[in-house]
């Protein structure tokens, strides 16, 4: 393991000699399928945004192997504190893309009740995919606290936290690695180094030799892997999860990858990303790389590929249909979940809002009576 050398597993010809992912054929295909599903979901969200049907999305293209490779290394009963560029993690562990689509539409069926912007998912089932927060880095240190809870109760579960290269400058990163190091908390930190933080390139984000090397400042072992090589990501993460589960403490994994698009649907990267970079990384598409490996080892056929692709696309389209049909959240959802119990002042404010909505003839007001 090295903090500056880049570790790859899959070679140019698709071979990965000497590496055993420890997965059945079905599991390998599940990984592959998740990559396809992630891309289908991602492409669809961008299309929905372009056509004005949703307000916002965050392109995941290029990062898929980092997410899915990471996901493949932890158990369903571990907790995941995600970056917003992690569509693949939930999908790998069985989150229904339709449930994610409800969030993209902010409708009544969204687990966040339409309160968050699109791409800010939250699930407790089938996995704990912790409510995504916009403020960068805050979740990293929360993951350490949650990991401490596992340790304190003697459970063998771990926390995973994922964040971008920009995220390493945040306060949460500093506190998280520091506390995790001292507490030997069962947590794995995955830095998705995708070259940019919005328009800020790596060399303006840090003068350090790599992101992985930052682990040394906290006594946290670190490794730097090719983030477009799903086996490299998996290999590092499996090892880190094993360390954490064994009580040996945290690991920092830098996954070197590239954001093949704008920061979000509101961003135009042509203003600041040199065209050559996109061209270079287009040749290193993470799905292509894995496909080559699967073809080489005869786990995948062209026919199977086409089949899976179609399946994924249809699954996403079905989700869009359901999410479009679902109504907006009820007006009362502005006022619930601020506290476990609705306090008096919020009850009064809610009654006022309902009364006004009713007088305005607003659809959201239901029968116009505050239902709580």
């Amino acid at each position, binding site marked *: 393991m090295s903090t500056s050398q880049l570790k790859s597993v899959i070679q140019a010809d698709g071979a990965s000699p000497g590496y055993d992912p420890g997965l059945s054929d079905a599991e390998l295909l599940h990984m592959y399928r998740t990559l396809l599903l992630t891309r289908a979901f991602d492409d669809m969200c961008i299309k929905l945004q372009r056509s004005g049907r949703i307000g916002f999305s965050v392109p995941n293209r290029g990062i898929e192997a980092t997410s899915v490779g990471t996901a493949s290394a932890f158990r369903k009963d571990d907790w995941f504190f995600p970056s917003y560029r992690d569509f693949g993690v939930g999908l790998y562990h069985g989150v229904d893309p339709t449930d994610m689509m409800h969030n993209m539409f902010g409708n009544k069926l969204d687990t966040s009740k339409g309160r968050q912007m699109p791409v800010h998912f939250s699930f407790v089932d089938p996995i704990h995919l912790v409510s995504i927060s916009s403020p960068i880095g*805050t979740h990293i240190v929360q993951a350490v*606290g949650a990991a401490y*809870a596992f340790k304190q109760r003697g459970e063998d579960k771990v926390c995973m936290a994922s964040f971008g290269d920009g995220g390493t400058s945040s306060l949460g990163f500093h506190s998280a690695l520091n506390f995790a190091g001292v507490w030997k908390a069962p947590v794995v930190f995955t830095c998705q180094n995708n070259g940019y933080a919005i328009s800020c390139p790596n060399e303006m984000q840090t003068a350090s030799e790599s992101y992985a090397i930052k682990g040394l400042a906290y006594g946290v072992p670190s490794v730097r892997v090719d983030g477009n090589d799903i086996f490299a990501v998996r290999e590092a993460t499996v090892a880190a999860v094993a360390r954490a589960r064994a009580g040996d403490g945290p690991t920092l994994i830098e996954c070197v990858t590239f954001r093949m698009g704008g920061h979000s649907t509101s961003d135009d990267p042509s203003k600041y990303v040199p065209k050559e970079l996109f061209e270079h990384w287009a040749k290193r598409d993470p799905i292509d790389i894995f496909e080559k490996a699967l073809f080489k080892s005869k786990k995948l056929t062209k026919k199977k590929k086409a089949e899976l692709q179609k399946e994924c696309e249809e699954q996403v389209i079905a989700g869009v249909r359901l999410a479009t049909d679902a109504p907006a959240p009820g007006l009362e959802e502005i006022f619930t979940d601020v506290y*476990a119990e609705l306090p*008096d*002042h919020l009850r009064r404010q809610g009654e006022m809002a309902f009364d006004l909505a009713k007088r305005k003839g607003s659809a959201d007001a239901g029968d116009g009576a505050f239902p709580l």
Partner: protein
Amino acid sequence: MANITLLKAVNEGLRGAMQNDPSVLCFGEDVGPKGGVFLATENLTSEFGEGRCFDTPLSEDGIIGTAIGMAMNGLRPVAEIQFQDFIFPAFDQIVSEAAKMRYRSGGQYTVPMVIRTPYGGGIRGGLYHSQSGEAYFCHTPGLKVVIPSTPYDAKGLLIAAIQDPDPVLFMEPKALYRSVKGEVPDENYTVDLSTLRSVKEGDDVTVFCYGAMVPVVEKAAALAQEKGISTNIVDLRTLLPLDEEGVLEHAKRTGRVVIVHEAPRFCGYGSEVSALIAENVIEYMEAPIKRVTGFDTPFPNTLEHHYLPDERRVLDAIEQTAAY
């Protein structure tokens, strides 16, 4: 039942809560073997072990951030911020995260945690060991903010805060830590959050206050009494959510209101109490709604006795309000 200081009541509240519930744990800077710089966590490490009462690195962001993660995952953390003045590095975790987690996750994730922190003047602490920042937090939906002024309330409110399903900022008036004593039951008990406390009934002027200002107001009321003015003293004690009904009742009762706090006046907590009254029961008011507060300056060291509202300044306001 024992006659103990407010500080001791806090210590007992923590101890009781930890005995009661193995998921309760205390941590922060120097709270372990040293027992905290004010000794609020004294002996907890020796009684409950290093896994349940321990020191952290010097990072309030880390303290609160990890506490949130613990709370989300089944523990009941009681995090200490050594002085309220040093809570600001954790401001983002408190207002952006702890306060909004339940809401943004549709109730899937919750943060039942307590942040304990000594606040306020009176120890010659200068700018950074004296502040009263309650208003910053009271403007943050999703938080609860509690300030006790008696040993009884300190223990009962603290245990209630620890049992509460939502994040509670528990601000301890350090000026009262050792200067007030009171009867406190030995066993665990709770004092309901969101109820105010009637300190003294009176007919002429109602004074709303909390924390270290309560004894100051009591002294002022005694002086006012000598001048024939009957003061109705209300300790708000849970600042958020506030017992608004109770406040309005007490305001109406006398039709004359003074609000007292240590924090600067501008956009201070007193402004909300005043605005509530002016919005709901202004027609009962027979005098201007006065505020007696710290000045709108940073907190000075040598001259803190002029900065802090004292009984004389409060008395002035009571007299003027009564005479209006």
